[in-house]
């Protein structure tokens, strides 16, 4: 029997497949038994009520998706009263995704959701920080370190830092999160993007710009997961464009200890369940007894000082 269980710090998951925040909710229980998953990851919540962005909030681009949902949230009170009890009906660990406009607000919410029934907190530091003129905390190592330090003090639960691809300092941001006490890194969030209707000349999203997710994001997220796994000693959870078991295995080989599946669930609600089955079959076919045997096994030769981009042929 192949073993699928993995450890994310002190938290043991029965398999490495879990949903990405924002693409999962209690509603998915209509389609399959949620206890099949490695973990449950909630949609990001905020302290107070948030209505979200104007519509249209989604459009498709070349086999991927742009969204500008805008983190609608019913607030922490509603969450503790209704959502946490729902997930307590399951054995699967509950990971709560949180966001705040300022580091202090973030830390306060972190403390508020540190309640029995919650097994880890995923901090969405990829969203705009009001104190930093709208730049996401995770764009820079300094703001990442600052907010993660405050979050670390606010809870004793495992803290997962969800990083952004909208940075040029991936490894530095990852190390800053680790130094500030993150227990794991979720790599990564959506990439800032845009689409325009050439007939009306209007942006296709009501918020003008949005986040790219789906298969187009995968090579970028995979590269980041690889960089983060090399730059830190804490577990990396791969996230970005994972639609099939092959995608998931690529992330595991690159160094991720688990993966999150997002947009693929919109296309096939049972995508995660299929992936868990397929992962078992893949490992059996490879003659392996545990998924742990493939984590971080990328054949990348000697570690290089830096990345040299090949120039395009003339």
């Amino acid at each position, binding site marked *: 029997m192949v073993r699928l269980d993995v450890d994310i710090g002190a938290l043991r998951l029965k398999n490495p497949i879990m949903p990405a925040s*924002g*693409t*999962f*909710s*209690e*509603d*998915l*229980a*209509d*389609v*399959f*038994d*949620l*206890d099949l998953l490695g973990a449950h990851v909630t*949609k990001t919540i905020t302290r107070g009520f948030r*209505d*979200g962005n104007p*519509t*249209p*909030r*989604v*459009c*498709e681009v*070349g*086999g*991927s*998706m742009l*969204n500008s*949902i805008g983190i*609608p949230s019913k607030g922490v009170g509603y969450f*503790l009263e209704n959502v*946490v*009890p*729902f997930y*307590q*009906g*399951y054995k699967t660990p509950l990971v709560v995704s949180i966001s705040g406009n300022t580091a202090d607000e973030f830390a306060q919410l972190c403390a508020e959701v540190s*309640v*029995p*029934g919650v097994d880890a907190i995923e901090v969405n530091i990829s969203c705009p920080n009001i104190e930093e003129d709208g730049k996401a905390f995770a764009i820079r190592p300094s703001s990442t370190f600052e907010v993660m330090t405050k979050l670390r003090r606010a809870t004793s639960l495992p803290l997962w830092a969800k990083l952004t691809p909208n940075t040029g300092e991936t490894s530095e941001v990852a190390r800053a999160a680790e130094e500030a006490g993150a227990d794991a890194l979720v790599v990564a969030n959506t990439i800032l993007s845009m689409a325009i209707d050439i007939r009306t000349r209007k942006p296709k999203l009501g918020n003008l710009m949005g986040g790219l997710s*789906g298969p187009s994001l995968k090579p970028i997220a995979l590269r980041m997961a690889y960089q983060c796994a090399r730059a830190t000693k804490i577990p990396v959870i791969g996230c970005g464009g994972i639609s099939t078991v092959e995608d998931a295995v690529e992330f595991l080989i690159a160094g991720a200890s688990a993966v999150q599946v997002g947009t693929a*669930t*919109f*296309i*096939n*609600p*049972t995508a995660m369940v299929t992936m868990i089955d397929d992962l078992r079959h893949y490992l059996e076919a490879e003659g392996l007894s545990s998924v742990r045997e493939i984590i971080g096994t990328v054949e990348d030769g000697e570690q290089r000082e830096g990345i040299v981009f090949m120039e395009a042929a003339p």
Partner: protein
Amino acid sequence: MSNIHHLTPPPRTAYELELEVLSNEAVNGEYRLLVLNAPRGLLERCRAGQFFHLLCPQMGGQAPYLRRPMSIYGFYPEREELHFLYKVTGEGTRALAMLRRGHGLNVLGPLGKPFTIKPEWEQLVLAARGVGLATLAPLALEARRLGKELTAICSARSESVLMSVDLFRHMGANVITLVDEDGSSSVDNVEAVLNTLIDGPGIDAFYTCGSNRLLKLLQKVGTRHGIPGQIALEQQMACGLGMCHCCVRPFRKDGGIVNLRVCREGPVFDIQEAVAW
């Protein structure tokens, strides 16, 4: 936390299934009827006003990527048939039109809140235009099953694209057809038709879908005469299940405006709560 009350996980209510295409034919110059072979158990779960989220085939390209919501036109457990009526308007419906007998189509559903018919409502009136009538067609079946009187006000650009008239008649509905060609579909005339019905057999409830003008008119007439109603709304969706919050629309509720998910809190809403677009 001591006040946490454990909830029992809900049972499955929606299914992701690959269904076989039985036929996919043009019914007039604009609309096509897609008939799928579906398990009886799935069809017995369907209700008028609900929808399926269709994974449109990718014919030689990447698009369409996201699923497309499609209201149920007909569900017949005894024949194991699920029907969708659609108009080819974009990449998703263009891809659907490519399906041939024997092809598979991945569907997710049934989804969303259905229409309701209260026991005390005897005289039902549905009014819609174009493909909006497709969404209301199963309501006629339900009305017949419940022994209700139904009047269907079917509006269209021309006689040639009037939808579902025969179906409504077959269900025993009193059908009134109105078209742009002779001006009979004007808002004023629809209002006159409604007033005639109110003065005659009376109207206990309205049902509509798809037309902003009809929505406003039914809200006005409903308010004036105290007639309740329901509307099935459409909105672009990603997940169809309530997870993504893409498909919100504004509604009047509790003295203010709130955003509700069309896929989850709808697609059927109280007609007076809907905000015209």
